[in-house]
């Protein structure tokens, strides 16, 4: 059993906490997000025979990277940046966060989550946005926290990268 710390990043109200709530049973309440600015959950999974324990740090939403408590990122093995497809601004913030994380933490396993797939008709993102994301070379997973779609795939995509990196 190996443990890995991962962080969920993204703009305010993109659905980070909802995604985690779909994935794990939380020990701590949401009030930690508004007080301490972070809530930690745990999920154990098996990736190709390797038992993995993910300590998921759900960071309070940020409008830009400057608001992120960087100390919370220390020691993370990977991260997920969540984008709200219905909000163009969240895409900008995601790119900004990714850039700055890479600058400060180096290259780490990561996945982009395009959330609110159940509201695709309201999406403000177009082909160009998606192409830009794809050009980063990072996995992109469409998710719907409301319907529970893509949630397992999102975390599995990151976990596989973590296992490969660990080996």
């Amino acid at each position, binding site marked *: *059993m190996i*443990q*890995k*710390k991962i962080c969920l990043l993204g703009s305010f109200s993109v659905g980070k906490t909802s995604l985690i709530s779909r994935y794990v049973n939380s*020990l701590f309440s949401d009030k930690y997000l508004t007080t301490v600015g972070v809530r*930690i959950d745990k999920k154990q999974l098996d990736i190709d025979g390797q038992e993995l324990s993910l*300590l998921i740090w759900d960071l309070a939403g940020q409008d830009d990277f400057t608001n992120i408590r960087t100390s919370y990122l*220390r020691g993370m093995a990977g991260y997920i940046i969540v984008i709200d497809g219905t909000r163009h601004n969240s895409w900008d913030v995601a790119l900004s966060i990714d850039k700055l994380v890479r600058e400060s933490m180096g290259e780490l396993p990561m996945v982009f989550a395009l959330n609110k797939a159940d509201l695709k008709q309201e999406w403000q993102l177009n082909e160009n946005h998606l192409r830009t994301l794809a050009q980063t070379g990072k996995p992109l997973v469409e998710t719907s926290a409301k319907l529970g779609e893509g949630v397992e795939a999102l975390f599995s995509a990151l976990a596989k990268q973590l296992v490969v990196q*660990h080996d």
Partner: protein
Amino acid sequence: MTVGTPDVEQLRRLLFGKDYDDLLVLKEQFQHSDKYSASVAGIISEALRLRSGQDDSLSEVLEPTVEQALTRSISRNPKGIADMLYPVMGPAIRKSINQALSEALENLNRLLENSLSLRSWKWRFDAWRTGQSYAQIALLRTLVYQVEQVFLIHRETGLLLQHVESPNAVSKDPAMVSGMLTAIQDFIADSFDASQGDALRTLSLGDVTVLIEHGPQAVLAMVVRGNVPSEELHELLLETSAAIHSQYASALKAFHGNPGPFANTATLLSDCLKSRQQRQQQHSPWLAWLLLGSIASGLAYWTFTVWQAQQQRLQQEAGEKQAQQQALQTLSQRLQELQSHTSDLQTSLQTLTAQQREQLEQHRQESLKLAQNEQAISELSHQIEASTYPFELGKADVGLQQPGLVQLGENIQALLRASNLAGKTPQVIIVGNADDSSGTEEFNRKLAQQRASNLRDALIRNGVPAFVLAAYSINGPEQAATLLKNERSTRYQVRLY
């Protein structure tokens, strides 16, 4: 020793001078293992002593080798190790047993005190009032402090390396708590612009305090409930942290999420699970002694009761047995008596039978005798009645010695004896008779009377008792019908009364 061509060799000697020979000697030492071993043997113990004085790395390096050597030695010859440990293990085991017994007695006493005392009922009331468990209330009231949990956290990632907790502590997922502890420290450090190197050392809420010790690679966090002796416990944390950093330095540096190498740190962390109870007046554990005494008394009473019941049963059985024996003896005696009685009865019966037989015989004899007697009486009676005495005509003289008369007298006496035997009295009636063919009737009557009287007298003189004899003439009132007329003889009639 030469290396290379002579010219090169010459050049080297010119360049290095005498040092070249020393270098060759050193080279030879390294090339020959025996020489190199001899060289190292001279300094190895000093080198080990020096290094062990510097840090604990030597212990860390030697630990697996020593463990492996010990394992092999024990598996090859366990008796040798056992013999070596025997002087140590015996006293240690005794001490451990004594300590365990003492602790058990103390715990029992505490349990009794907590269960029976007024204080315990107050705690129960508090537990009911506050909705907490009795154990929590008792713990809070009796403990000065208790270290409930100790976390060993990787400083960089906030991941949990090891976690221990006291038996009665309630803990949530330690991996998540470890992360939150790290996050909170970061939150405080960020929020209040703490200077570099400063770290959160204490968190406190109510009666729970979290003491934190930051090491270079790992953080130790101790959750304490009660009144915390901060300095004392911080010092303990510091020592433990130092020990872990010393023993697991390489593992800490190489940590990438696998907490396996830190499994053995549980021993070190468990040493931090301290607790202190309220100092109570030292007193003899009288409740425990009382309970044990009560149990012992109960057991003794029960044993005595059982023994008493057993004795009673045995006595009862013995009494019954004795009564049975007595009854048996009585029966035996009665049987013997019965047998004796039976024997006596049989004897009596035999005697009676014999007597009866004898009596029967006697009776038969008597009957026979009586019959004979009766026959004799009858014969004698006939003979007597058939007897006659021939009187001369007109005379009444009786000759005493007349054979017929003598015979008659003897017969009458014999009849008397026989009649006596038969219980009867005979009477012989002598009937005088006279021939009425001549003489007068009166004369004949007197002659007949005379003749009867003379015969009677003659018979009396011959010895016949008088009462037997009665004399009458034929003309008398008792004249026999059978007598014939014109007969001079006298007739006799025999009667028995």
